[in-house]
């Protein structure tokens, strides 16, 4: 199967290059242009002196802060909502109203609360990542076999013990799925969030906007490729961590 995956990738790239060379894609840059663009971004930077690697680091910092905050808040809250019907009944309407608001709609407020740059971007990531993690945690806790809970209770376990030793481990696979979705959405949100401007002058979304402003569409696509690749790697890392940490399942 692996061979086939590579094959589709190479085929798509080849076709893209051929179509670009035939002039069929108009002003869309070709893969070769994009590779040259990547080189430019690493060696010259955009704006000159602002190198790709620093743009990437700035974006990763924002994502990690926002994501960590989302994990710290969403997992405990999800376990509480999943294990207590009262908590669930009280908080569920609020969650359901706030959840459909796209993180980008919060942008103007984020800017007046946290200014431009690190914290407003981290806040947007947080919003993007929070709800998938929360909902998956709730679902995970609720789907733990009731027999296990009953058995623990029969053996004299207290509520706290049941939550920590039965419900949380049982919900783990679902929580990890939430983390994967959360970091993916967070990463997508970041790029848009940076497009209104950042204080440090660094960030992948900010870099793409600059490339658009100077009509360098090869650099725009190169930025997209970096974002896609990093998003893919982050997903793989969570998946790998899941395999290692949940070996007992």
């Amino acid at each position: 199967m692996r061979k086939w995956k590579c094959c589709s990738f190479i085929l798509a790239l080849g076709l893209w290059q051929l179509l670009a060379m035939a002039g069929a894609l108009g002003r869309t840059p070709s893969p070769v242009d994009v590779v040259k663009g990547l080189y430019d971004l690493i060696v010259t930077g955009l704006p000159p002196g602002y190198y790709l690697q620093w743009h990437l680091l700035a974006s990763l910092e924002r994502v990690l802060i926002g994501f960590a905050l989302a994990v710290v808040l969403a997992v405990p809250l999800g376990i509480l909502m999943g294990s207590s019907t009262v908590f669930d009944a009280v908080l569920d309407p609020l969650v359901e109203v706030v959840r459909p608001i796209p993180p980008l709609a919060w942008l103007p407020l984020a800017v007046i609360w946290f200014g431009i740059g690190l914290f407003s971007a981290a806040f947007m990531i947080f919003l993007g990542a929070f709800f998938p993690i929360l909902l998956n945690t709730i679902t995970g806790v609720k789907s733990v076999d009731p027999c296990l809970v009953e058995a623990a209770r029969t053996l004299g376990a207290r509520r706290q013990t049941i939550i920590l030793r039965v419900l949380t481990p049982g919900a783990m696979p679902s929580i990890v799925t939430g983390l994967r979705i959360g970091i993916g959405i967070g990463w997508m949100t970041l790029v848009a969030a940076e497009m209104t401007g950042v204080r440090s002058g660094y960030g992948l979304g900010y870099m793409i906007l600059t490339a658009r402003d100077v009509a360098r569409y090869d650099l725009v696509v190169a930025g997209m490729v970096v974002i896609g690749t990093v998003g893919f790697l982050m997903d793989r890392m969570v998946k790998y961590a899941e395999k290692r940490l949940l070996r007992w399942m």
Partner: protein
Amino acid sequence: MRRKRGQVGGSGTSRVIPGGTPAVIASAILIMALMFTGCGEKEPATNAVKVGYLRSDLHQLAYYVAGEKGFFTEEGLDVKEGGVFNAGPEEMSAFSAGELDMGYVGTAPAVTFAAQEMVDILIVAQINAGGSSIIVRSGLEAGDVSALKGRTVAVPGHSTVQDFLFRLALTEAVLGEDEVNIITLKPPEMIGALASGQIDAFVAWEPYPQMAVAQNVGWVLENSSEIWPHHPCCVLVVDRGFAERNPDTVRRFVAAHVKATEYINENPLESADMGHLFTGQDSEAVEAAMKNIEFVHELNVKGLQRYVEFLMEIGVVKVESAKSFCDTLIDQQFLPREN
């Protein structure tokens, strides 16, 4: 004919691998390619013009005045709003997609997109000269630009006219570009960022500087005409193909633009009221802002050339020579001839 047509269908690569994801991807790319090539039929000469302009940009008041005063109608034109944009690059993307015939736009996006061959346009008239300012945060003392050492200053975009103006001001103040933290912010975000102390100064086009002054969040350190007298700013551009098919329509459009520009200069008070309606800003700020703008239609060719040289210096534009590039980009034949 710039693009070769008819080669797309012949590639037939989707047959090579039977079924599964590869074929799906291949066909998706083919369909997209066909969509890209399907447009661009030749049209007959027309009086209808699809025009793009920037939202709330006081420099482009002539467009609003020409519409309100009926100058376009007088010239027998059917002007259609092709798009209102928040930034010049977006407007140039619309030109690239063939959505616009003519546009009121900043020199920076017009020149940059033309040099990268993303658009095929002509610059046919000036819209204004001057009209930008360096605004410093209220409460921050500064005698001149050298006081901005170590401060964060926002410009509307890397390589924009405002960016260039600020670099000129830095040179004059004997400051290096690395001694100031220059960042990009879109003008609507600048005033909020200045008010909250996120930035110490910004360089932007009117009415944003005067809005900052009216809201008491900033003050004018220097007007752009003090940095570079009569510097070119917004220009009137036309799609080259449209101009070739409809030279008379373009000439009449430029005539209406010239009339509107003269009207603004002859009736400053009434024009300020129209500026208030056009930008949605209060009349006081608009009046102050208009004093900082020169509404002119004659092209500042030397100034444009100087700006292209700057773009070449910082590596944004790669052309053989600024002069020959400007010669192909600028076309003054549509301007009314003086008798």
